[in-house]
Protein backbone atom coordinates (compact mmCIF):
# COMPACT_ATOMS: atom_id res chain seq x y z
CA UNK A 1 0.00 0.00 0.00
CA UNK A 2 1.26 3.43 -0.93
CA UNK A 3 1.97 5.81 1.90
CA UNK A 4 -0.44 8.77 1.90
CA UNK A 5 1.25 11.79 0.40
CA UNK A 6 1.33 15.21 2.04
CA UNK A 7 -0.37 18.17 0.37
CA UNK A 8 0.69 21.80 0.68
CA UNK A 9 -0.83 25.10 -0.35
CA UNK A 10 2.01 26.57 -2.42
CA UNK A 11 0.52 29.52 -4.32
CA UNK A 12 -2.43 31.87 -4.29
CA UNK A 13 -3.77 35.08 -5.75
CA UNK A 14 -6.79 37.38 -5.72
CA UNK A 15 -7.98 39.30 -8.74
CA UNK A 16 -9.28 42.83 -8.23
CA UNK A 17 -12.42 42.71 -6.08
CA UNK A 18 -15.05 45.23 -7.17
CA UNK A 19 -18.43 46.15 -5.75
CA UNK A 20 -20.22 47.56 -8.75
CA UNK A 21 -20.12 47.99 -12.50
CA UNK A 22 -19.61 45.62 -15.41
CA UNK A 23 -17.18 42.84 -14.70
CA UNK A 24 -15.44 40.17 -16.78
CA UNK A 25 -15.68 37.25 -14.38
CA UNK A 26 -13.88 34.77 -16.64
CA UNK A 27 -11.09 37.27 -17.24
CA UNK A 28 -10.73 37.85 -13.50
CA UNK A 29 -10.55 34.12 -12.91
CA UNK A 30 -7.92 33.61 -15.60
CA UNK A 31 -5.88 36.43 -14.10
CA UNK A 32 -6.13 34.94 -10.59
CA UNK A 33 -5.15 31.46 -11.78
CA UNK A 34 -2.12 32.77 -13.69
CA UNK A 35 -1.05 34.87 -10.72
CA UNK A 36 -1.48 31.92 -8.34
CA UNK A 37 0.70 29.74 -10.61
CA UNK A 38 3.36 32.45 -10.70
CA UNK A 39 3.19 32.77 -6.91
CA UNK A 40 3.71 28.98 -6.65
CA UNK A 41 6.54 28.91 -9.19
CA UNK A 42 4.56 26.36 -11.18
CA UNK A 43 3.92 26.35 -14.93
CA UNK A 44 0.54 25.52 -16.45
CA UNK A 45 1.89 22.35 -18.07
CA UNK A 46 2.71 20.93 -14.63
CA UNK A 47 -0.90 21.23 -13.46
CA UNK A 48 -2.82 17.96 -13.68
CA UNK A 49 -6.02 18.82 -11.79
CA UNK A 50 -8.57 21.65 -11.70
CA UNK A 51 -11.29 22.20 -9.09
CA UNK A 52 -13.82 24.86 -8.21
CA UNK A 53 -17.01 25.59 -6.29
CA UNK A 54 -19.01 26.57 -9.35
CA UNK A 55 -22.29 27.91 -8.02
CA UNK A 56 -23.19 31.59 -8.40
CA UNK A 57 -22.91 33.52 -5.14
CA UNK A 58 -26.66 34.15 -5.13
CA UNK A 59 -29.90 32.34 -5.91
CA UNK A 60 -30.36 31.69 -9.61
CA UNK A 61 -29.22 29.53 -12.46
CA UNK A 62 -25.51 29.06 -13.13
CA UNK A 63 -24.37 30.61 -16.39
CA UNK A 64 -20.71 29.88 -17.03
CA UNK A 65 -18.72 32.92 -18.05
CA UNK A 66 -21.49 35.25 -16.81
CA UNK A 67 -22.05 34.47 -13.12
CA UNK A 68 -19.75 31.48 -12.64
CA UNK A 69 -16.50 30.04 -13.97
CA UNK A 70 -16.50 26.28 -14.32
CA UNK A 71 -13.72 24.00 -15.44
CA UNK A 72 -14.85 24.02 -19.08
CA UNK A 73 -14.68 27.81 -19.21
CA UNK A 74 -11.14 27.79 -17.80
CA UNK A 75 -10.05 25.14 -20.30
CA UNK A 76 -11.52 27.18 -23.17
CA UNK A 77 -9.41 30.17 -22.18
CA UNK A 78 -6.19 28.65 -20.84
CA UNK A 79 -3.80 25.87 -21.86
CA UNK A 80 -3.53 23.08 -19.31
CA UNK A 81 -2.18 20.24 -21.46
CA UNK A 82 -1.62 17.79 -18.59
CA UNK A 83 -5.10 17.83 -17.00
CA UNK A 84 -6.27 14.36 -15.94
CA UNK A 85 -8.77 15.19 -13.18
CA UNK A 86 -11.34 17.84 -12.29
CA UNK A 87 -13.94 18.55 -9.62
CA UNK A 88 -16.92 20.89 -9.54
CA UNK A 89 -18.44 20.09 -6.14
CA UNK A 90 -21.79 21.89 -6.13
CA UNK A 91 -22.28 21.73 -2.37
CA UNK A 92 -19.98 21.92 0.61
CA UNK A 93 -18.74 25.32 -0.56
CA UNK A 94 -15.16 25.62 -1.81
CA UNK A 95 -14.11 23.49 1.18
CA UNK A 96 -15.43 20.41 -0.61
CA UNK A 97 -13.37 21.14 -3.73
CA UNK A 98 -10.23 21.76 -1.66
CA UNK A 99 -10.78 18.49 0.20
CA UNK A 100 -11.33 16.61 -3.07
CA UNK A 101 -8.23 18.17 -4.60
CA UNK A 102 -6.17 17.18 -1.54
CA UNK A 103 -7.52 13.64 -1.80
CA UNK A 104 -6.60 13.52 -5.48
CA UNK A 105 -3.04 14.48 -4.61
CA UNK A 106 -2.82 12.19 -1.57
CA UNK A 107 -3.98 9.23 -3.64
CA UNK A 108 -1.46 9.90 -6.39
CA UNK A 109 -4.09 10.81 -9.00
CA UNK A 110 -2.60 14.31 -9.25
CA UNK A 111 0.58 16.14 -8.31
CA UNK A 112 -0.55 19.75 -8.68
CA UNK A 113 -4.14 21.04 -8.59
CA UNK A 114 -5.47 24.57 -9.06
CA UNK A 115 -8.63 25.45 -7.09
CA UNK A 116 -10.57 28.68 -7.62
CA UNK A 117 -13.69 30.56 -6.63
CA UNK A 118 -15.09 33.17 -9.01
CA UNK A 119 -17.86 35.52 -7.88
CA UNK A 120 -20.18 37.78 -9.85
CA UNK A 121 -22.54 40.38 -8.44
CA UNK A 122 -26.24 39.49 -8.34
CA UNK A 123 -28.29 41.12 -11.09
CA UNK A 124 -30.76 42.51 -8.52
CA UNK A 125 -30.66 42.95 -4.75
CA UNK A 126 -29.21 40.08 -2.72
CA UNK A 127 -31.43 37.69 -0.86
CA UNK A 128 -34.71 38.60 -2.52
CA UNK A 129 -36.91 35.54 -2.73
CA UNK A 130 -38.16 34.27 -6.05
CA UNK A 131 -41.89 34.91 -6.39
CA UNK A 132 -44.31 32.02 -6.20
CA UNK A 133 -45.41 29.41 -3.78
CA UNK A 134 -43.63 27.59 -1.03
CA UNK A 135 -42.84 23.93 -1.52
CA UNK A 136 -41.68 21.30 0.96
CA UNK A 137 -40.29 22.69 4.22
CA UNK A 138 -40.56 26.23 2.81
CA UNK A 139 -44.37 25.85 3.11
CA UNK A 140 -43.80 26.35 6.86
CA UNK A 141 -41.65 29.47 6.56
CA UNK A 142 -42.24 31.41 3.34
CA UNK A 143 -45.86 32.35 4.19
CA UNK A 144 -44.44 34.36 7.12
CA UNK A 145 -42.21 36.46 4.88
CA UNK A 146 -39.25 34.41 6.07
CA UNK A 147 -37.67 33.15 2.90
CA UNK A 148 -34.38 34.95 2.55
CA UNK A 149 -31.18 33.92 4.30
CA UNK A 150 -30.67 37.14 6.20
CA UNK A 151 -33.73 36.95 8.50
CA UNK A 152 -32.76 33.42 9.51
CA UNK A 153 -29.23 34.48 10.43
CA UNK A 154 -30.74 37.41 12.32
CA UNK A 155 -33.00 35.04 14.27
CA UNK A 156 -30.02 32.80 15.04
CA UNK A 157 -28.12 35.84 16.33
CA UNK A 158 -31.14 36.98 18.37
CA UNK A 159 -31.14 33.56 20.02
CA UNK A 160 -27.38 33.69 20.54
CA UNK A 161 -27.60 37.13 22.17
CA UNK A 162 -30.21 35.79 24.60
CA UNK A 163 -27.84 33.11 25.90
CA UNK A 164 -24.41 34.72 25.37
CA UNK A 165 -22.26 36.66 27.78
CA UNK A 166 -20.98 40.09 26.88
CA UNK A 167 -22.71 42.68 24.74
CA UNK A 168 -23.20 43.50 21.08
CA UNK A 169 -20.22 45.85 21.40
CA UNK A 170 -18.02 42.73 21.57
CA UNK A 171 -19.05 41.74 18.07
CA UNK A 172 -18.59 45.37 17.08
CA UNK A 173 -14.98 45.10 18.27
CA UNK A 174 -14.41 42.20 15.86
CA UNK A 175 -16.07 44.13 13.03
CA UNK A 176 -13.88 47.19 13.66
CA UNK A 177 -10.76 45.00 13.91
CA UNK A 178 -11.34 43.14 10.65
CA UNK A 179 -11.87 46.39 8.78
CA UNK A 180 -8.60 47.62 10.27
CA UNK A 181 -6.90 44.46 9.02
CA UNK A 182 -8.47 44.86 5.59
CA UNK A 183 -7.10 48.38 5.39
CA UNK A 184 -3.63 46.75 5.53
CA UNK A 185 -4.58 44.21 2.85
CA UNK A 186 -3.83 45.38 -0.68
CA UNK A 187 -6.28 42.93 -2.29
CA UNK A 188 -9.27 43.92 -0.15
CA UNK A 189 -12.22 45.51 -1.91
CA UNK A 190 -12.68 49.21 -1.33
CA UNK A 191 -15.50 49.31 1.21
CA UNK A 192 -16.98 51.81 3.61
CA UNK A 193 -15.27 50.89 6.85
CA UNK A 194 -16.53 51.58 10.37
CA UNK A 195 -13.73 52.94 12.53
CA UNK A 196 -15.16 53.12 16.04
CA UNK A 197 -17.47 51.18 18.34
CA UNK A 198 -19.70 54.26 18.50
CA UNK A 199 -20.06 54.22 14.73
CA UNK A 200 -20.85 50.51 14.82
CA UNK A 201 -23.41 50.78 17.62
CA UNK A 202 -25.24 53.65 15.93
CA UNK A 203 -25.23 52.06 12.48
CA UNK A 204 -28.58 50.90 11.11
CA UNK A 205 -30.03 47.46 11.57
CA UNK A 206 -30.73 45.49 8.43
CA UNK A 207 -32.58 42.76 10.28
CA UNK A 208 -32.39 43.27 14.05
CA UNK A 209 -30.08 42.47 15.79
CA UNK A 210 -27.88 42.24 12.66
CA UNK A 211 -26.47 45.58 11.56
CA UNK A 212 -25.39 46.48 8.08
CA UNK A 213 -21.75 46.23 9.20
CA UNK A 214 -22.40 42.64 10.37
CA UNK A 215 -23.03 41.58 6.77
CA UNK A 216 -20.21 40.77 4.40
CA UNK A 217 -20.00 42.76 1.21
CA UNK A 218 -20.74 41.03 -2.10
CA UNK A 219 -17.92 41.53 -4.57
CA UNK A 220 -17.14 40.48 -8.10
CA UNK A 221 -13.75 38.86 -8.38
CA UNK A 222 -11.82 35.65 -8.19
CA UNK A 223 -9.29 33.91 -6.02
CA UNK A 224 -7.19 30.87 -6.84
CA UNK A 225 -4.86 28.55 -4.97
CA UNK A 226 -2.31 25.95 -6.03
CA UNK A 227 -2.14 22.68 -4.08
CA UNK A 228 0.84 20.39 -4.60
CA UNK A 229 2.30 17.17 -3.30
CA UNK A 230 5.09 18.19 -0.93
CA UNK A 231 7.38 15.83 -2.86
CA UNK A 232 7.25 18.24 -5.81
CA UNK A 233 8.66 21.12 -3.73
CA UNK A 234 12.21 22.11 -2.72
CA UNK A 235 13.27 20.47 0.53
CA UNK A 236 13.97 23.74 2.34
CA UNK A 237 10.69 25.51 1.48
CA UNK A 238 8.50 26.57 4.40
CA UNK A 239 5.22 24.94 3.38
CA UNK A 240 1.63 25.37 4.51
CA UNK A 241 0.70 21.69 4.71
CA UNK A 242 -2.93 20.61 4.94
CA UNK A 243 -2.76 18.79 8.26
CA UNK A 244 -6.41 17.77 8.07
CA UNK A 245 -9.90 18.78 7.04
CA UNK A 246 -13.27 18.11 8.63
CA UNK A 247 -16.45 18.57 6.66
CA UNK A 248 -19.77 19.78 7.96
CA UNK A 249 -22.28 17.08 7.21
CA UNK A 250 -26.02 17.73 6.87
CA UNK A 251 -28.09 17.56 10.06
CA UNK A 252 -29.98 14.28 10.45
CA UNK A 253 -33.24 15.76 11.76
CA UNK A 254 -35.72 18.24 10.32
CA UNK A 255 -35.34 21.91 11.25
CA UNK A 256 -37.47 24.92 10.59
CA UNK A 257 -34.35 26.36 8.95
CA UNK A 258 -30.80 24.97 9.02
CA UNK A 259 -29.29 28.03 10.73
CA UNK A 260 -31.71 27.69 13.67
CA UNK A 261 -30.06 24.44 14.71
CA UNK A 262 -27.51 24.18 17.48
CA UNK A 263 -24.50 26.15 16.15
CA UNK A 264 -22.41 25.07 19.10
CA UNK A 265 -23.12 21.34 19.07
CA UNK A 266 -22.96 21.01 15.29
CA UNK A 267 -19.78 23.08 15.12
CA UNK A 268 -18.19 21.10 17.96
CA UNK A 269 -18.80 17.91 15.99
CA UNK A 270 -16.75 19.40 13.15
CA UNK A 271 -13.98 20.67 15.38
CA UNK A 272 -13.76 17.40 17.34
CA UNK A 273 -13.04 15.64 14.06
CA UNK A 274 -10.56 18.34 13.05
CA UNK A 275 -8.55 18.12 16.27
CA UNK A 276 -8.59 14.31 16.20
CA UNK A 277 -7.39 14.21 12.59
CA UNK A 278 -4.64 16.76 13.05
CA UNK A 279 -3.50 16.22 16.63
CA UNK A 280 -3.84 19.97 17.13
CA UNK A 281 -6.07 21.73 19.65
CA UNK A 282 -7.21 25.30 20.35
CA UNK A 283 -4.08 25.79 22.49
CA UNK A 284 -1.72 24.89 19.62
CA UNK A 285 -3.31 27.14 16.98
CA UNK A 286 -1.36 30.26 15.98
CA UNK A 287 -4.05 32.05 13.98
CA UNK A 288 -7.76 31.58 13.23
CA UNK A 289 -9.34 32.54 9.91
CA UNK A 290 -13.05 32.11 10.59
CA UNK A 291 -15.93 32.40 8.18
CA UNK A 292 -17.85 35.61 8.68
CA UNK A 293 -20.53 35.91 6.02
CA UNK A 294 -22.41 37.42 8.90
CA UNK A 295 -20.21 38.63 11.76
CA UNK A 296 -21.79 36.38 14.45
CA UNK A 297 -20.66 33.31 12.48
CA UNK A 298 -17.09 34.07 13.55
CA UNK A 299 -18.24 34.05 17.18
CA UNK A 300 -20.05 30.73 16.68
CA UNK A 301 -16.83 29.23 15.29
CA UNK A 302 -14.70 30.64 18.12
CA UNK A 303 -16.91 28.68 20.53
CA UNK A 304 -17.33 25.62 18.33
CA UNK A 305 -13.57 25.27 17.81
CA UNK A 306 -13.12 25.32 21.57
CA UNK A 307 -11.24 28.59 22.04
CA UNK A 308 -13.84 29.21 24.78
CA UNK A 309 -17.12 27.81 26.07
CA UNK A 310 -20.57 28.33 24.58
CA UNK A 311 -21.71 31.94 24.77
CA UNK A 312 -18.25 33.20 25.78
CA UNK A 313 -16.90 34.37 22.41
CA UNK A 314 -17.46 38.05 23.19
CA UNK A 315 -15.47 38.07 26.44
CA UNK A 316 -12.84 35.77 24.84
CA UNK A 317 -12.46 37.98 21.79
CA UNK A 318 -12.21 41.24 23.72
CA UNK A 319 -9.89 39.91 26.45
CA UNK A 320 -6.62 41.84 26.63
CA UNK A 321 -4.63 38.60 26.91
CA UNK A 322 -6.17 36.83 23.91
CA UNK A 323 -3.37 34.93 22.17
CA UNK A 324 -4.97 33.89 18.89
CA UNK A 325 -5.39 36.56 16.18
CA UNK A 326 -8.65 36.25 14.22
CA UNK A 327 -9.28 37.11 10.56
CA UNK A 328 -5.98 38.82 9.93
CA UNK A 329 -6.75 39.80 6.33
CA UNK A 330 -10.17 41.20 7.14
CA UNK A 331 -12.31 38.16 6.45
CA UNK A 332 -15.34 38.41 4.21
CA UNK A 333 -16.53 41.42 6.18
CA UNK A 334 -13.44 43.47 5.47
CA UNK A 335 -11.88 41.95 2.37
CA UNK A 336 -15.03 41.03 0.43
CA UNK A 337 -17.08 37.90 -0.01
CA UNK A 338 -15.03 35.11 -1.60
CA UNK A 339 -17.02 32.44 0.20
CA UNK A 340 -14.12 31.40 2.38
CA UNK A 341 -11.30 31.11 -0.13
CA UNK A 342 -9.97 34.46 1.12
CA UNK A 343 -9.80 33.00 4.64
CA UNK A 344 -8.00 29.91 3.36
CA UNK A 345 -5.44 31.96 1.44
CA UNK A 346 -4.69 34.14 4.47
CA UNK A 347 -4.14 31.05 6.61
CA UNK A 348 -1.74 29.66 4.00
CA UNK A 349 0.12 32.97 3.79
CA UNK A 350 0.53 33.18 7.57
CA UNK A 351 1.67 29.57 8.02
CA UNK A 352 4.17 29.72 5.17
CA UNK A 353 5.58 33.03 6.40
CA UNK A 354 4.47 34.95 3.31
CA UNK A 355 1.91 37.33 4.88
CA UNK A 356 4.07 40.45 4.47
CA UNK A 357 3.28 43.30 6.82
CA UNK A 358 0.49 41.25 8.40
CA UNK A 359 2.79 38.35 9.25
CA UNK A 360 2.28 36.95 12.74
CA UNK A 361 5.48 36.00 14.52
CA UNK A 362 6.21 32.25 14.79
CA UNK A 363 2.97 31.26 13.05
CA UNK A 364 3.04 27.43 12.86
CA UNK A 365 -0.63 26.52 12.56
CA UNK A 366 -3.82 28.06 11.20
CA UNK A 367 -7.42 26.98 11.87
CA UNK A 368 -9.64 27.91 8.94
CA UNK A 369 -13.41 27.54 8.65
CA UNK A 370 -15.50 27.87 5.52
CA UNK A 371 -19.26 28.26 5.89
CA UNK A 372 -21.22 28.50 9.13
CA UNK A 373 -21.33 25.62 11.65
CA UNK A 374 -24.81 24.85 10.28
CA UNK A 375 -24.24 25.29 6.55
CA UNK A 376 -22.29 22.60 4.80
CA UNK A 377 -18.70 23.71 4.56
CA UNK A 378 -15.69 22.62 6.48
CA UNK A 379 -12.72 23.33 8.68
CA UNK A 380 -9.00 22.96 8.02
CA UNK A 381 -5.73 23.05 9.86
CA UNK A 382 -2.71 24.23 7.92
CA UNK A 383 0.63 23.52 9.54
CA UNK A 384 4.27 24.07 8.78
CA UNK A 385 6.99 21.64 9.82
Amino acid sequence: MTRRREVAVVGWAHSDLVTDGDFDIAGSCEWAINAALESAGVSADQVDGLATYPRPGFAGARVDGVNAVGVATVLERMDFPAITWFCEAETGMVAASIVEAAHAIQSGTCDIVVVWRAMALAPGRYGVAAPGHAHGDAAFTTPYGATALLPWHALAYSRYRSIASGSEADLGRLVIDVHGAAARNSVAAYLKRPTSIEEYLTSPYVCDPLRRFDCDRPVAGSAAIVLAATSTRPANERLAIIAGAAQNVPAPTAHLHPVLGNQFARGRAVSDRLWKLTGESPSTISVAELYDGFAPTAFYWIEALGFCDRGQAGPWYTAADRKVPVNTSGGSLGEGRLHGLGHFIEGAKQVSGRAGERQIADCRTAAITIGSPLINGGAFVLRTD
Partner: protein
Amino acid sequence: MRPGPVIDAVSEPFWRAVATGKLELTYCPTCRLFTHPPRARCGNNCRGDLEWREVSGRGVVWAVTVPRREWVPGFDRAVPFGLFVVELDEQDGLLMPSDCDLETALGLQVGQPVEVCFEAHDGYTLPQFRPVSGPTEVAR
Protein backbone atom coordinates in the same frame (compact mmCIF):
# COMPACT_ATOMS: atom_id res chain seq x y z
CA MET B 1 -50.41 38.70 -0.90
CA ARG B 2 -48.58 36.05 1.00
CA PRO B 3 -46.81 33.26 -0.82
CA GLY B 4 -49.16 30.44 0.20
CA PRO B 5 -47.99 26.97 1.17
CA VAL B 6 -47.84 24.19 -1.40
CA ILE B 7 -49.60 21.39 0.44
CA ASP B 8 -48.29 17.89 -0.25
CA ALA B 9 -49.06 14.35 0.90
CA VAL B 10 -46.86 14.61 3.99
CA SER B 11 -48.05 18.03 5.13
CA GLU B 12 -51.76 17.77 4.25
CA PRO B 13 -52.91 16.71 7.77
CA PHE B 14 -51.18 19.78 9.25
CA TRP B 15 -53.07 22.19 7.01
CA ARG B 16 -56.35 20.28 7.45
CA ALA B 17 -56.00 20.54 11.25
CA VAL B 18 -55.15 24.25 11.35
CA ALA B 19 -58.22 24.92 9.17
CA THR B 20 -60.29 23.57 12.08
CA GLY B 21 -58.40 25.51 14.73
CA LYS B 22 -56.10 22.72 15.87
CA LEU B 23 -52.32 22.59 15.82
CA GLU B 24 -51.14 19.04 15.06
CA LEU B 25 -47.53 17.97 14.47
CA THR B 26 -45.83 14.72 13.53
CA TYR B 27 -44.82 12.68 16.56
CA CYS B 28 -42.77 9.55 17.12
CA PRO B 29 -44.36 7.33 19.77
CA THR B 30 -41.13 5.34 20.11
CA CYS B 31 -38.71 8.26 20.57
CA ARG B 32 -41.46 10.43 22.13
CA LEU B 33 -40.34 13.36 20.03
CA PHE B 34 -42.14 15.77 17.73
CA THR B 35 -40.66 16.62 14.33
CA HIS B 36 -41.44 19.86 12.52
CA PRO B 37 -41.62 20.53 9.59
CA PRO B 38 -43.55 17.26 9.26
CA ARG B 39 -41.96 14.05 8.11
CA ALA B 40 -43.36 10.63 7.28
CA ARG B 41 -40.64 8.84 9.27
CA CYS B 42 -38.69 9.58 12.40
CA GLY B 43 -35.24 11.05 11.79
CA ASN B 44 -34.08 10.79 15.38
CA ASN B 45 -32.95 7.18 15.60
CA CYS B 46 -35.73 4.69 15.17
CA ARG B 47 -36.69 5.56 11.57
CA GLY B 48 -40.23 4.45 12.43
CA ASP B 49 -43.48 5.88 11.13
CA LEU B 50 -44.66 9.14 12.66
CA GLU B 51 -48.22 9.88 13.77
CA TRP B 52 -50.10 13.17 14.10
CA ARG B 53 -50.61 14.54 17.59
CA GLU B 54 -52.26 17.76 18.75
CA VAL B 55 -50.09 20.21 20.72
CA SER B 56 -51.18 22.89 23.18
CA GLY B 57 -50.29 25.83 20.98
CA ARG B 58 -48.45 27.39 23.90
CA GLY B 59 -44.81 28.30 23.88
CA VAL B 60 -42.24 31.03 24.42
CA VAL B 61 -40.46 33.45 22.12
CA TRP B 62 -37.21 31.75 21.08
CA ALA B 63 -35.83 34.55 18.87
CA VAL B 64 -37.12 37.72 17.26
CA THR B 65 -36.05 39.94 14.37
CA VAL B 66 -37.27 42.94 12.41
CA PRO B 67 -36.71 42.68 8.65
CA ARG B 68 -36.05 46.22 7.46
CA ARG B 69 -35.68 45.51 3.76
CA GLU B 70 -38.12 43.74 1.50
CA TRP B 71 -37.00 40.18 0.80
CA VAL B 72 -40.32 38.67 -0.23
CA PRO B 73 -41.74 40.76 -3.08
CA GLY B 74 -45.42 41.48 -2.57
CA PHE B 75 -45.50 40.23 1.03
CA ASP B 76 -48.54 41.77 2.68
CA ARG B 77 -46.68 43.35 5.57
CA ALA B 78 -44.59 46.38 4.65
CA VAL B 79 -41.11 46.51 6.17
CA PRO B 80 -40.21 46.95 8.92
CA PHE B 81 -42.34 44.21 10.46
CA GLY B 82 -41.81 41.57 13.13
CA LEU B 83 -40.70 38.01 12.58
CA PHE B 84 -40.24 35.68 15.52
CA VAL B 85 -39.71 32.04 16.28
CA VAL B 86 -41.62 30.22 19.00
CA GLU B 87 -40.37 27.22 20.97
CA LEU B 88 -43.42 25.11 21.79
CA ASP B 89 -43.90 24.01 25.39
CA GLU B 90 -44.00 20.35 24.38
CA GLN B 91 -40.31 20.02 23.48
CA ASP B 92 -36.98 21.86 23.51
CA GLY B 93 -36.08 23.05 20.04
CA LEU B 94 -39.56 22.46 18.59
CA LEU B 95 -39.81 25.70 16.63
CA MET B 96 -42.51 27.48 14.61
CA PRO B 97 -42.39 30.97 13.06
CA SER B 98 -44.85 33.82 13.29
CA ASP B 99 -45.00 37.35 11.97
CA CYS B 100 -46.44 40.43 13.63
CA ASP B 101 -46.52 44.20 13.36
CA LEU B 102 -43.50 46.30 14.27
CA GLU B 103 -44.89 47.56 17.57
CA THR B 104 -45.56 44.01 18.81
CA ALA B 105 -42.11 42.89 17.66
CA LEU B 106 -40.31 45.68 19.49
CA GLY B 107 -42.11 44.64 22.69
CA LEU B 108 -41.26 40.93 22.41
CA GLN B 109 -38.58 39.42 24.57
CA VAL B 110 -36.96 36.04 24.28
CA GLY B 111 -38.62 33.73 26.80
CA GLN B 112 -41.98 35.57 26.77
CA PRO B 113 -45.07 33.29 26.72
CA VAL B 114 -47.10 33.19 23.50
CA GLU B 115 -50.04 31.19 22.21
CA VAL B 116 -51.25 30.10 18.82
CA CYS B 117 -54.00 31.82 16.86
CA PHE B 118 -55.30 31.03 13.41
CA GLU B 119 -55.28 33.46 10.50
CA ALA B 120 -57.56 32.85 7.51
CA HIS B 121 -56.10 33.37 4.05
CA ASP B 122 -57.34 32.68 0.56
CA GLY B 123 -57.40 28.87 0.40
CA TYR B 124 -55.51 28.09 3.61
CA THR B 125 -55.26 28.86 7.32
CA LEU B 126 -51.96 30.03 8.78
CA PRO B 127 -51.05 29.42 12.43
CA GLN B 128 -49.60 32.52 14.09
CA PHE B 129 -48.52 33.30 17.64
CA ARG B 130 -49.42 36.21 19.88
CA PRO B 131 -48.31 37.23 23.36
CA VAL B 132 -50.46 35.54 25.99
CA SER B 133 -53.21 38.05 26.84
CA GLY B 134 -53.51 39.50 30.30
CA PRO B 135 -50.73 40.42 32.71
CA THR B 136 -47.83 38.00 32.48
CA GLU B 137 -44.46 37.65 34.06
CA VAL B 138 -41.77 37.93 31.42
CA ALA B 139 -39.46 34.99 31.93
CA ARG B 140 -35.92 35.35 30.70
